[in-house]
């Protein structure tokens, strides 16, 4: 998820041996869980992104033209779910950012109990499927906490993504050279001042792309909340399909809308990443 942060410490080539470094085989394998961000290097018109994105747009325009009967109806009803989809996504990402910052700071804290709490949070949440967490908060805890569908949805998504964000914040903060904190301390700043004035402003730059990536993942995962009686995009599609039995057509439109949104945002994040890389070269 945070392949941008170069989590693995780069190992220096072994000093022994007479071979020049360039002659050594380079095992530069980038194993990730599949970034959602298209490579911006591909400038040709027939790039995978162009085919997918414009293909989806053409499909969503052509289908209602060819057979207006179900498709126009679907397009009139289903997009109303976008409000819930985006509502849940945006509110959740905001809470997840706060939780992630706290978790990330906790993970690097020198105070043992704080560190332990943050680490347990991250480990536990990352070890339970999001769907199970949703069920747990809605069905198991819902009656106790008196939570409605949307509130449970936001709570579960925030807690879940907060754990992943925590790891991004941790890696981001740790990617800032140690000398930055030392320079700040040597000037008489407190650790807190150094963190807010020196470390975090630089961290934000580093973690923006992976955070964007999380946003897209959360947008997609928000479809899970349709089972909690939240009228999101997927739920609107299901409702239409179950009354008209137009399953193929309904879910085709739902899939196309998700596809267009995620492809659009992934391109946006990709552009942002390129800009940051070009502007934010660090020399020290």
């Amino acid at each position, binding site marked *: 998820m945070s392949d941008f942060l170069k989590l693995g410490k780069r190992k220096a080539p072994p000093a022994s041996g007479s071979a020049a470094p360039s002659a050594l085989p380079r095992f530069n394998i980038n194993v990730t869980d599949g970034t959602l961000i298209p490579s911006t290097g591909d400038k040709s018109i027939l790039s995978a992104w162009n085919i997918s994105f414009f293909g989806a747009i053409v499909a969503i325009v052509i289908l209602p033209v060819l057979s207006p009967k179900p498709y126009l109806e679907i397009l009139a009803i289903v997009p109303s779910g976008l409000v819930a989809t985006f509502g849940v996504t945006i509110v959740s990402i905001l809470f997840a950012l706060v939780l992630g910052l706290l978790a990330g700071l906790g993970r690097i804290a020198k105070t043992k109990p704080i560190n332990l709490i943050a680490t347990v949070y991250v480990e536990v949440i990352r070890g339970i499927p999001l769907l199970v967490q949703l069920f747990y908060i809605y069905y198991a805890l819902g009656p106790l906490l008196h939570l409605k569908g949307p509130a449970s949805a936001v709570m579960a998504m925030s807690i879940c993504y907060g754990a992943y964000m925590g790891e991004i914040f941790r890696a981001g903060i740790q990617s800032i*050279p140690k000398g930055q904190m030392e320079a700040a*301390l*040597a*000037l008489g700043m407190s650790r807190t001042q150094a963190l807010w004035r020196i470390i975090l402003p*630089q961290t934000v730059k580093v973690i923006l792309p992976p955070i964007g990536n999380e946003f897209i993942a959360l947008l997609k995962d928000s479809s899970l909340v349709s089972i909690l009686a939240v009228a999101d995009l997927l739920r609107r599609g299901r409702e239409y399909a179950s009354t008209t039995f137009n399953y193929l057509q309904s879910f085709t439109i739902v899939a196309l809308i998700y596809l267009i949104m995620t492809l659009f945002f992934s391109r946006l994040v990709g552009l942002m990443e390129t800009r940051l890389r070009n502007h934010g*070269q660090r*020399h*020290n």
Partner: protein
Amino acid sequence: MDKGIIRIKDARKHFGPVQALRGVDLEVSKGEVVLVIGPSGSGKSTLLRCVNRLEHLTSGEIWVEDDCVTSPHANIRKIREEVGMVFQSFNLFPHLSAAQNIALAPLIVLKEDRASAQKSARDLLARVGLADKEYSYPEQLSGGQQQRVAIARALAMRPKIMLFDEPTSALDPEMIKEVLDVMLDLAKDGMTMMVVSHEMGFARAAADKVVFMDEGQIIESAAPDELFAHPKEERTQRFLDHIL
């Protein structure tokens, strides 16, 4: 007798099984410029970093004026305000302009008002010969310029002591002079300086005392001309043969 402004007493520092400092005693008087030389791994940087407690001594004491740096009750932030430090890798804050780098600590640590902090930042930039770089970001500056901004940043806290940790080691030869010139000016103005460096020219021109360290101990110390010309110890001689 005049009491030193920095007093290091039997300083010992272990990094796991490695003994970086094995009992160092050193006094630096007010206004004195002390150059610490020695092979890499001799503990000279560690010694410097213990003075403002970026590293903690394992045992021993370090005093800065009337404050015991190594005491757990020391107000270390107060001490650090009075001890400026310049690093080998500059460590400028890349998200701030040159002037902001200099003004930040006076603003948030000394609580100076914005106008006067900005004015002294400009004055300091002029003093290190970078009056036109106020709005430049570190990545737009050469190594020598970055290091001069870093010196100005430390001076902005109006320290009584300046620590220099290999300030020219990361610089191209043609940039070393511009940094050393700034340091020479500082020395002339009577700043107390502790410098880890192998710049012999600077030592001859500005240092009152050169300290040779090896394997975590001070082998000998003397005035620069004396130490370079007539080292008493064979180890010092061998080291000088390598770098002179």
